[in-house]
């Protein structure tokens, strides 16, 4: 299985769509936005713009990586016959979904780390080592619901629908989570939807940790509940997609 994970990572790192949306986009936009608003201070969180944007763009990149590395590739593998190719080898079925999940979580790391690195190098962002560790671990673990969502989409939909659904889901969640513009700018209806999305909880946890405070219990509970629900959904959808008639 270790070799399988290695192969999965290798292929995604060679995939242009992954590299553009997941690595180039968040780093590029971070550099752009932090130059514009990096020195302003955010009222809601009390964070300097360069730190707030670091968390936002890292969160966007992580969310995108988790969904882009799962939904479409997995749907394509099911439909192209690659899944069958694996099913007729001694590889057990559960190893396939587990590998997909683990690989997806590893593929989240480049955007998290590169945005952080860009923040340190270009905006002199400095956090204590303990806070860096806490921030990265929380933002890493927090992508589990999004990876599970991507896998569920890949299990339930054919590639031509999985593609737009994953894109809309990814940008929708990023927008509603307040990753592209702050919650205070959202219309009231959008705000109330935003409050129940996992990306909203995810972003708020990141900002709180960056500000040196403990995350709100409601946010932690929210993302945990989403995580459990989406992992269960992903497992059920996987079973349905691989069931032997």
């Amino acid at each position, binding site marked *: 299985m270790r070799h399988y994970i290695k*192969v999965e990572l290798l292929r995604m790192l060679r995939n242009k769509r992954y590299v553009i949306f997941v690595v180039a986009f968040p780093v590029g936009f971070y550099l752009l936005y932090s130059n514009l608003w990096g020195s302003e201070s955010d009222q809601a969180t009390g964070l300097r713009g360069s730190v707030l944007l670091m968390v936002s763009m890292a969160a966007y990149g992580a969310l995108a990586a988790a969904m882009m590395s799962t939904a479409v590739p997995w749907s394509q593998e099911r439909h192209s*016959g690659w899944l069958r190719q694996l*099913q007729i*080898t*001694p590889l057990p079925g559960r190893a396939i979904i587990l590998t997909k999940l683990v690989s997806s979580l590893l593929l989240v790391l480049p955007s998290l780390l590169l945005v952080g690195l860009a923040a340190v190098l270009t905006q002199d962002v400095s956090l204590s080592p303990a806070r860096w560790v806490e921030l990265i671990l929380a933002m890493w673990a927090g992508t589990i619901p999004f990876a599970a969502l991507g896998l569920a989409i890949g299990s339930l939909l054919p590639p031509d629908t999985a593609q737009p659904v994953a894109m809309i889901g990814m940008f929708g969640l990023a927008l509603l989570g307040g990753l592209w513009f702050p919650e205070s700018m959202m219309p009231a209806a959008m705000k109330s939807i935003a409050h129940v999305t996992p990306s909203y909880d995810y972003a708020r946890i990141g900002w709180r940790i960056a500000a040196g405070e403990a995350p709100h219990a409601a946010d932690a509970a929210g993302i945990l509940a989403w995580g459990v629900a989406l992992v269960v959904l992903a497992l059920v959808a996987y079973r349905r997609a691989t069931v032997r008639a």
Partner: protein
Amino acid sequence: MRVPIPTVKPMNAIAFTDVTKRYGDVLAVDGLDLEVPAGATVALLGPNGAGKSTSINMLLGLLRPSSGEIRVFGEPPETAVANGEIGAMLQEGALIPELTVAETVDFVRRLYPRPLPLEEILRLADLTELTRRRADRLSGGQTQRVRFALAIAGGPRLLLLDEPTAAMDVESRRTFWDNMRAYAARGRTILFATHYLEEADENADRVVVIARGRVVADGSAAAIKAGVAGQAVSFLLGEQPVAGLDALPGTTGVELQGGRVTLRTTDLDATVAALYRKTTLDIRDLQLHGADLEDAFLALTKEA
């Protein structure tokens, strides 16, 4: 875990016992009984929709039979697959576009407990020149070679090929069958599905003809040809008597039309020899019609 092979009774590589597969109202496989001893190369010949792919997918545990039992080396298909005993080339199967040929083959071979060495697989599948090429830059025929490499990567004792040459040109086909025979020569069992009659004739020790989910003929290609009344001898009889011709060896039918008589026979040589030795007829314009596998196939698979 390896199960020792009993020496007294050779184990069947494949055993179907009264296997049925139903999709809703459609009976894809209808009471299939088939045994393939280890080491044989068998062609599963039949028209589209005969149940070839369904049977192969059941052998791989991808489909479950509606009733009956399937054994692969004495085990249920799922166990045989988990033990790495089976390799297969299915009808459809894309590769991972971002991986090279060598990466793909090496990945799959590592999933098996007793794989062949990478170099050997690449050589057996004619891929040594293409090892570093990415899968999305391969031609159709090259992709098929990679899929053959994946099928043999684990060194399986049973190799299943479902219409393996469908996307190949004539030259690739010939090379493919050479490669397949090289693999079979190591005592492995091979079952391949095809609707190309020459392929079955040229590459299998035994041909199993299936139609409508049932075995309709089973034997060597020659035996199947002989078993069908597709052979005939005809000549101008003129005013001579037709009586007694139906008693000639091998003859199964006599037709007379406009002075020309046609004898249907299961043994062309015996019928012709007897025609000259045991009758005193004046035989003119003798014509022989040998059966080829095509005739046999059509005769066997047409609706009863």
